[in-house]
């Protein structure tokens, strides 16, 4: 039995039982972050806030949503959007946040790639981050099923068909996933379960892992400089805050984060109230009809690059390319053969690789949306080939990179 003394205050009482002071030091006031960072370092906090926004808005949607094929569409577009007090607000917030979160994820991801924050001890941060990307993708897909509009139904149909594996004709597997021959009640209910319980729990666990993986290697900085955190922390604590190369998470990093978050929220809320069609596609305001495919179906924007890698090739080749694309980012720390953890601008050929990859993903995204014909098909094919080519090139160009 540990030794407990009579508490001198509420603070002391809690401290003896929960070590709140130690927690506060370790997680907040003495969690050291490099000072040499820019606003891109705030994207993690922006993601945490957006995830919280999704959770809270989701809670209120969950109060009224009906996961039944005959009731789902009206429970969203009538009950929630037009009857529930501020129901429309939660729906708009949830839909816009679900789309914008991927913009921030991509910025966050590419920031990591640019600054080499996936190497030299930070591999687990990268891997847990990529797992979060997969989890968020599954969460977004399952969520999109729920309004049971035309896009919900046909996206469900097409994506589950992927699992037939082309020439493998694994139709049994597809039916097992759906729980029926086509996306119907069983399908809707199980994706509801995934969206509301299983995947959010997995995401929260992965966030814990992601934060944990960050602790020991520490946050990176704009120059990739390896800091002596002990020494810099000592400087800070002795009073030389201006001279120290580190800042404390609370209040230093937090206040800069909050500033970036607040500017993000201006942009976010503008979209929620005044410009939301990109996040709530009009096609999904038609109730699901299993006997009529819309003239144009496409996934949400954040899946388009991936969708376009699938499209230009024959079925089996396309599926292989698609599978490759899902997994390849995960392997970045191991495909990049250079030990240099510095910004891409100082990494010779890797600089070109980075910008080529970014531009290629945007081209793939654009081509994924337009109807696959004529010049667009051709551009899409070359962009898909470029994507594969760039990954094959990566180990080669980084192997010969000069030590920075």
């Amino acid at each position, binding site marked *: 039995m540990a030794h407990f003394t009579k508490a001198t205050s509420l603070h002391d009482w809690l401290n003896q039982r929960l070590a709140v002071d130690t927690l506060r030091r370790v997680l907040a006031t003495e969690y050291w972050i490099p*000072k040499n960072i*820019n*606003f*891109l370092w705030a994207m993690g906090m922006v993601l945490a806030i957006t995830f919280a926004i999704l959770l809270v808005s989701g809670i209120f949607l969950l109060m009224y949503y009906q996961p039944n094929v005959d009731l789902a569409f*009206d429970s969203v*577009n*009538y009950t929630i*959007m*037009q009857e529930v007090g501020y129901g*429309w*607000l939660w729906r*708009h917030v949830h839909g816009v946040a679900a789309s914008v979160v991927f*913009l921030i994820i991509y*910025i966050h991801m590419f920031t990591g790639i640019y600054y080499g924050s996936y190497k030299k001890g930070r591999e687990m941060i990268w891997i847990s981050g990529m797992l979060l990307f997969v989890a968020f993708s599954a969460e977004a897909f399952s969520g999109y099923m729920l309004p049971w509009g035309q896009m919900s139904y046909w996206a469900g149909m097409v994506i589950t068909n992927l699992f037939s594996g082309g020439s493998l004709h694994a139709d049994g597997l597809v039916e097992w996933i759906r729980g029926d021959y086509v996306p119907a009640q069983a399908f809707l209910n199980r994706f509801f379960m995934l969206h509301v319980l299983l995947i959010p729990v997995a995401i929260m666990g992965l966030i814990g892992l992601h934060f944990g993986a960050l602790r020991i290697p520490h946050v990176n900085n704009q120059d990739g400089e390896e800091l002596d955190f002990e020494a810099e922390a000592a400087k800070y604590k002795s009073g030389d*805050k*201006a001279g120290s190369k580190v*800042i404390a998470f609370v*209040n*230093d990093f937090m*206040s*800069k984060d*909050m*500033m970036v*978050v*607040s*500017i993000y*929220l*201006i942009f976010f*809320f*503008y979209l*929620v*109230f*005044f410009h939301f069609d*990109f996040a709530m596609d*009009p*096609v*999904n*305001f*038609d*109730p699901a009809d299993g006997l009529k495919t819309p*003239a*144009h179906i496409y996934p949400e*924007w954040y899946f*388009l690059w991936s969708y376009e890698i699938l499209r230009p090739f024959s079925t089996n080749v396309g599926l292989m390319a698609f599978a490759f694309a899902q997994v390849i980012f995960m392997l970045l720390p191991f495909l990049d053969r250079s030990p240099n953890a510095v910004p891409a601008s100082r990494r010779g050929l890797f600089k070109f690789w980075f910008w080529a990859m*970014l531009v290629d993903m*945007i081209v793939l*995204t*654009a081509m994924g*949306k*337009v*109807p696959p014909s004529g010049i*667009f098909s051709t551009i899409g094919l070359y962009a898909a080939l470029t994507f594969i080519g760039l990954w094959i090139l990566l180990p080669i160009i980084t192997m010969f990179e000069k030590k920075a």
Partner: protein
Amino acid sequence: MKELFILAVVTTFTLVTYYLVEPFAHSHMHKHHESEKFVYEDLPALTKQGDVARGKDLVMGAGACVGCHAIKVEGMAAPMDAVTSASAYGVNPPDLSDAGSVFDAKFLAALIKNPAHALMLEHKYNDKTGKTFPMPPFYGAGGDLDQEIADMVAYLQSIAPKGEELTPKMAFETACGRCHAVHYQYEKDGERHPAWTQIGEHPTFKHKQDELAYETQVLDYQDSLVKYLGKLPPDLSMYIRSRGEHFLSTFAENPQNYLKGTAMPRVGLNAEAAEKVIEHLADVGDSKRHERDAVGKNVMIYIIIFAIFALLWKKQVWKELH
């Protein structure tokens, strides 16, 4: 400054992606048609001044209009109930009480003279197909045909509600309600409105049997519509969000532009009635739009104040860190 450069780069790539994925892609997926502002260029202009009294005689008499059409405001009931009418003609002929202010005068005149032509349905009703449109053309009562038609139009205009008397709901019911259902209930000006079926507003029933009998009637009517049109016209509850104002307006103006060969007739709305129909669809499918705009404005003001305070806090904290 470096941070501003980074922000510019991120913003540029984001906006380029947005542009390509939204405006650019959508322009390649959907044809854009400009509104012709409901002038109906293809129809002949009205040349005669109509006489209301003569028009009334014609409508009630030689025109034989009331043989199929009710005119509630003048005490003329429908000759048959809606379901029986639909099984006879394919659809329930509209009550003409509001027609004078819902439909364009040129259009009404053209319709009386040659319904299939005015409604742009000649691809379905012509010598080759051998099908005749359920409403017969008016061949005249012995006098100047154009004068007689002008008289009838003048009469219809005289009995129709003027200005604000024509509510969005009335415009919708006359222009669209005999083919399209709108199953969402809605509230407007403190009054609750029940679901709209092709045979009228859905009443509340105490006994299940009465409710089922009513619903059977609706289904029978819808069966007639399917036989007449080829498929059931869609429920319009969410069309304001799935199609948007511009599409709905230009579609009603000329459905053939968007869906060549469709069985949907050109509606023949005048510009004011078209706006009211759109407003009705917005009342049913996007009823919280005013609240959304008002709350949005307040939230934007708040979030800018929030950002200013966040900036000030950051400046204070970082004063001793730089």
